[in-house]
């Protein structure tokens, strides 16, 4: 798996031993449990099962408001931005790198789009291309700095994120952009096909494409190999550097699309929006790695994680719990999931 530890300079020499010894102790305890295989088979579906349980519980507790089509539509629609950003985070995590500027890239795209629409009267398609093009370029630059200049991705993207925040403030003059916007911007996400809101369809299409790329093409396999070990991948004839750059570019592109969705759903560009999406997106990817392909970052796990957390939070809101319960729920869900994976599989998620 692409591990965050790969990006650090910490000596990995005793990491394998550490993992092995933990595995051993888990195996030792395993005597009293069903076999490891059975457990890991089962644990793959723990997260989706949790989602079902949460839905069942809230449906019983809130029979009038929770299990309604309206509520389902709302939850899915409002999570579209986060879902796409989580897929962006996924694409760099797979090659073993962090992109901490994704939130800021989202923020930039969601002011660029309304900005160019209102100032230059371009049509929506062109506006979207510009916004997504800019973030793709930024991703490419981060990727080049990481792969060619051999800088630590954590630090590089932290710097880029900070610079982008400055660019957003400069571009917007610290004002929300909401005047002179064409109706097409909002229609882009309020439209629906067969009653399914467009944002849900966008997410579904993007997710399928990313899934195909990651899990069904040689390129995706190579991305995972680079995430596993840059050296080993290179010695197998894989262009590790090129793949790293493309992963960052892909992350930038997806962050740009997330920004477009955000601008279109809100109908404006807010200079303060963006960074707050970053940590939930990463949390969703890590949470998602506990299901389906356990121990590997994967598309479906990531999406289920986004939805599970959103459903939980939505149910709690309907119950009228205080504000602080929401972040508590998010955090506890992530911690429980990775701890459970650690003990069920006996290996670290990192």
């Amino acid at each position: 798996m692409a591990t965050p530890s790969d990006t650090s300079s910490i000596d990995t020499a005793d990491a394998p031993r550490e993992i092995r010894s933990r595995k051993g102790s888990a195996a030792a305890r395993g005597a009293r449990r069903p076999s490891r295989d059975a457990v890991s088979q089962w644990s793959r579906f723990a997260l989706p099962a949790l989602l079902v349980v949460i839905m069942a519980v809230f449906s019983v507790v809130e029979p009038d408001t929770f299990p309604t089509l309206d509520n389902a539509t709302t939850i899915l629609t409002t999570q579209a931005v986060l879902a796409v950003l989580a897929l962006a985070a996924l694409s760099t995590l797979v090659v073993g790198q962090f992109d901490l500027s994704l939130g800021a890239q989202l923020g930039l795209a969601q002011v660029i789009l309304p900005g160019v629409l209102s100032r230059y009267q371009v049509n929506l398609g062109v506006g979207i291309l510009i916004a997504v093009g800019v973030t793709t370029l930024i991703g490419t630059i981060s990727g080049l700095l990481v792969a060619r200049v051999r800088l630590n991705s954590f630090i590089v993207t932290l710097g880029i994120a900070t610079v982008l925040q400055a660019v957003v403030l400069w571009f917007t003059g610290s004002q929300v952009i909401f005047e002179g916007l064409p109706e097409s911007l909002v229609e882009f996400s309020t439209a629906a096909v067969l009653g399914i809101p467009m944002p849900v369809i966008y997410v579904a299409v993007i997710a399928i494409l990313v899934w195909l790329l990651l899990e069904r093409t040689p390129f995706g396999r190579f991305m995972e190999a680079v995430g596993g070990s840059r050296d080993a991948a290179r010695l197998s004839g894989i262009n590790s550097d090129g793949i790293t750059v493309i992963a960052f570019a892909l992350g930038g592109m997806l962050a740009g699309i997330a920004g477009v969705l955000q601008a279109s759903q809100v109908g404006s560009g807010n200079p303060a929006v963006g960074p707050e999406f970053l940590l939930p997106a990463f949390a969703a990817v890590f949470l998602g790695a506990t299901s389906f392909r356990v121990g590997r970052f994967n598309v479906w796990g990531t999406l289920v994680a986004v939805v599970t957390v959103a459903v939980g939070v939505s149910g709690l809101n309907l119950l009228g719990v205080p504000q602080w319960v929401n972040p508590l729920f998010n955090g506890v869900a992530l911690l429980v999931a990775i701890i459970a994976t650690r003990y069920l599989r006996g290996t670290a998620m990192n």
Partner: protein
Amino acid sequence: MTETAETGTTVPALSTRGLTKTFSGRAVLDDVDLDVQRGEIHALLGQNGSGKSTLIKCLAGVYRPDGGEITVGGRRLPRAFPPTAARRFGLAFVHQDLGLALDMTISDNLGVVRGFHRSGPFIKRRDQHAETRRVLDFLGVRASPHTLVRDLPVTARTLLAIGRAIDFSGGTDLNCLVLDEPTAALPDNDAHLLFDAVRQLAGRGVGVIYVSHRLEEIERLADRVTVLRDGRLISTREMAGTTRRDLVDEILGGGGLRAAGTRVTSTVGPRESTPRKALRGKGLTGVRIQDVSLAVEPGEILGIAGLAGSGRSELCRLLFGAQRLASGEVSIGDATLQRHRPAESIRRGLAYIPEDRRGQACLMRMTVRENLTLLRPPVRRGLIDKKRERRLSTEAITRFDVRPHDAEALVSALSGGNQQKVILAKWFAHRPSVIILDEPVQGVDVGAKAQVFAQLRQAASSGAAVMVVDSDFDNLVELCDRVLVLRHGAVAAEMAGDAVTAAAITRATFGISEEADHVALNEQRT
């Protein structure tokens, strides 16, 4: 070290009685009674999967035995104890992964494990360094306590890992030291430095358990030897009067080697032949390598010998394009490699299996299937053809006898020998014309080694040019048609046919002979 009459009266350094460990119903360790006397070097032998590692992990507190007891220095250990407690019982371990912090100094590495000399909360640097120097002198390592471990040669690192385990202040509290394949990563000619340190320790009354696959080492070093097979203790005997043949027979349990050999040859058979191409390097110069020219002809197995630091691994990397060539050129067949990169070399039919199996040769956290097909995943309409991929990997697993027969197992879960088989299978699937291997049988058991060698001979006889680096000269003698000896990054000698003997290679690696012992360590440092 010759414990004879008095051993009966003294308490053994370590003993186990009826030690048993089962994993999902299978006994991995079955009723093992082992006694290690004080001052004894006790070798532990067995194939991969014979229970050696499990035994050691039980001693280390990593596994909790299902039954039996462990006594160290007369003190019975509790059924379960954390690995951190082992040291308190007077047990110390040097694992294959040495567990040193590469970016810290020697002195700090010692302090972290054995405790720092302190005044209040502060480290007394002078005392700390004085002690470090004592340890280094004892080990025969010439380095300053300030040296980063990263800058030490492998041999010195291994010695340091041993040094960490010993307490020099006052009498020794160490009962038993367990060395798990300490020479696996060591150049053969440095091994005696390690042996000296081990003998000195034994001389201080420490019982040493020495795990190794190299029989000649055990012959040189051990007082007694215990063989494990299928989790059972087969025999414990005095090394004096035991031949290698006896040991191999016991390790394999009758005809095992022959069975392994025939399996390989029969399944591979007279297969498709490889495009015949020679590998040529002309005036190769790069890091650690000075103007080396060589050729490996199709059908030939060329061995590369030399001390660690002589440029053996670097030569492989230069030929493969994994490292920058300052000058010189490499050609495969008629084609001279222009943009010399791994990807191009692979396209031209070159295969390279690096020494660092975990870090560079395979992807530990991916499955056997994914590793096997990594070079060229089977594709149908732009997408990976899962069905064909599964079929190809199952075939490769059967042909190379990878255990367990499970394409979906993570490579990290396999033993070293089986990982090596996966790597061979991965490369051989593309019928490379030229195969470069750096330490292909390092840490691999006798049976798997025979299989790997058989595969290499088979590849050569079907027309591949094979180049093998091995620090175990006996392996080179067994396998190679011709051997080049590297010294200081240049070819020092070449021998072929009957002239290839371990003695000749050894002499050539040192240039002259004697006094080279410490030279070895010094030249690596530069």
